[in-house]
């Protein structure tokens, strides 16, 4: 939180979040459903939050490794698991504070105009995005040799999960049959945290029909109780696996050093 970068990120995120809320909701009537407003909110969430979390989170870990702070910490009675968990919690709390600030500004604005409001689902999805990407950010940081490397690595992860995987799939879709594209898309959304969060929006807002008839059976399954449980399990795995992997990487690096 003392980092200048973190403070700039907070200002930028709050400004963009509040501006989009205000502009979209004043321009269009309030209506339930998947509209351009909700799509803008969702995309803002998916574009900005992962970018900030990945870069700041990974550089935080890389900085510890690069500066020797991590080696110093190892001399204290603290395990690598405790270090990773501490980093993860700190990152989550920092971004929760930024989110709270953005939500508070939107709440204040809704008091003035009456038009602006924040759907509760977006609050939940924002928290989920922070939980998922903080874990991946720690992993990126543990891989990196230095801060610049961490920055590059997190940008690659961000671009792949937000853009490149989708473009690759769209390109494949031009040469394969529809049912193959459908199956590949289902695989992709499980292995891509950004798509997982996006799918979560459709699932929990009861808007799965937006995804089209090709995904009817798939969305029907996830709309059931078993589907919700599976969604929770996959989400937890997306948090736990990168952290466990980060621990393994740091242990390996510790042995090599």
């Amino acid at each position: 939180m003392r980092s200048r970068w973190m403070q700039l990120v907070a200002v930028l995120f709050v400004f963009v979040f509040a501006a989009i809320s205000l502009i979209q909701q004043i321009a269009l009537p309030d209506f339930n459903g998947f509209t351009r407003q909700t799509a803008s909110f969702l995309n803002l969430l998916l574009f900005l939050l992962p970018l900030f979390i990945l870069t700041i989170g990974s550089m935080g870990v890389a900085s510890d490794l690069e500066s020797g702070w991590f080696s110093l910490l190892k001399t204290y009675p603290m395990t690598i698991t405790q270090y990773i968990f501490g980093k993860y919690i700190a990152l989550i709390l920092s971004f929760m504070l930024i989110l709270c600030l953005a939500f508070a500004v939107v709440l204040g604005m809704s008091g003035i105009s009456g038009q602006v409001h924040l759907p509760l689902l977006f609050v939940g999805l924002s928290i989920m995005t922070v939980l998922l990407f903080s874990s991946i950010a720690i992993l990126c940081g543990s891989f990196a040799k230095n801060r610049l490397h961490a920055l590059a690595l997190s940008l690659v992860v961000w671009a792949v999960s937000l853009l490149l995987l989708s473009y690759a799939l769209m390109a494949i879709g031009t040469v394969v049959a529809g049912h193959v594209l459908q199956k590949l898309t289902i695989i992709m959304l499980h292995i891509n945290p950004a798509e997982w969060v996006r799918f979560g929006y459709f699932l929990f807002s009861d808007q799965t029909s937006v995804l089209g008839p090709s995904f009817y059976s798939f969305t029907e399954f996830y709309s059931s109780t078993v589907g919700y449980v599976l969604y929770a399990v996959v989400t937890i795995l997306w948090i736990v696996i990168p952290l466990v992997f980060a621990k393994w990487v740091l242990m390996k690096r510790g042995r090599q050093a």
Partner: protein
Amino acid sequence: MKRVLLLVILFIAFMLSVPQAHAKTKTLQQLIDETPENGTLQLSNVLYKENVVIHKNITIKGTEHTVLESLNQKPVIQIENAEHVSINNVTLQNSYLGITGEKSQHLHFENLHFKNMRSGIQLYNTNNVTLKHLKITGIQGHYSNKGNGIALYNSANVKVQGNNIQHVQDGVYIESVNHISLSENKIDNGRYGIHFMYTKNAQATGNTFKKNVTGIMLMMSQNVKMYDNHLYDQNGLNASGMTLFQSKYIKVFANIFQNNRTAISAQNLTNSTMKNNVLLMNQSAIELIRSNEKNQVKRNNFIGNIVNLRSDGTGSQIVQNYYDDYAGIDVNNDGIGDRNYVALQSFGQWMVRQPAYQYFIESPSVVLLNEIDRQTNIIEKEQLVDQEPLMQSTMTIERKNTWNFWKLVLGVGLVFTILWFWRKEIQG
């Protein structure tokens, strides 16, 4: 003894207050048969459980609690070869089929209430029909197990006005009907609100369609006008406000399409016009498939839609529409933008050709792709191009400006608390 007497009096009073308890000396069929030709039959608060057949000119008037029920799958009222039949103020309930009419003329049904019916009214080979202020509520379950609210076959000169129809398969099913007018009807939670098949010279005005699979389904029809209708929340799988299929001389004027999966899906349409409509916050506003140059999309307002126009590459005239995402300017101030509006989006075209692409709709990657398209498609001259985009919408969105003191206080309080905490953390 007094208590027993009191109980007997209460029992008699209760029995008298229940309409079913009215002593029926004659069946409804006997009453109809006894009514003279062109006569009026006045019914009181009675429940009739039977099927009746009408062959004569008659007016039947019920009261608030005149209730008719069928004991089998035959229609409650069957009209055959009659010249003038009028039925008013009757409730038909818990039956398979309400009223059928065949080879009859001058049928007038008004203020009828159909409750928990599989089908409401079916008319075959009828002429000069008026269906007014009917309330039809279907049975629960899937559409495939339900009948239509009103079904009209091979008929002419029909007026369907001010009806409220819900939970049926098709609100109004129209097949091979000439000259039909549908106005001020409210149809919701069905498969199709109005389903036109092989219809000529029809008009639908001032109707409201909500939460159907498709508001208006028009197939193989000609010379149909649809204006001032409000179609909203048709947003299930494969849903649309209107689907216009293989028809010609269709006019879609001044309708409001709001929050539909696809507002208008025009497939194989010719010589048709979509004009002065408001297309507001739909997933796809207008979809043109196998269209031709004689179709016009003119002076419509495209506001807040995710995809404004999409096509399979076939052409249509797209002129003088307002698009809220138009980025051009109007230097000569004539109300028309100085450069073309190109609605062509790679993703929109892919979605038409391969439905599985719909998964990516308005995803971050597609938003970026659309921005790139917007820059590269400026040179497009043919497909989905409006050469005279309007600068101003003809529509205004009403807003209520209500301010909430406590929300403002809470919001500002939270902002200052968070900033104070942050500052304390930095200083610490």
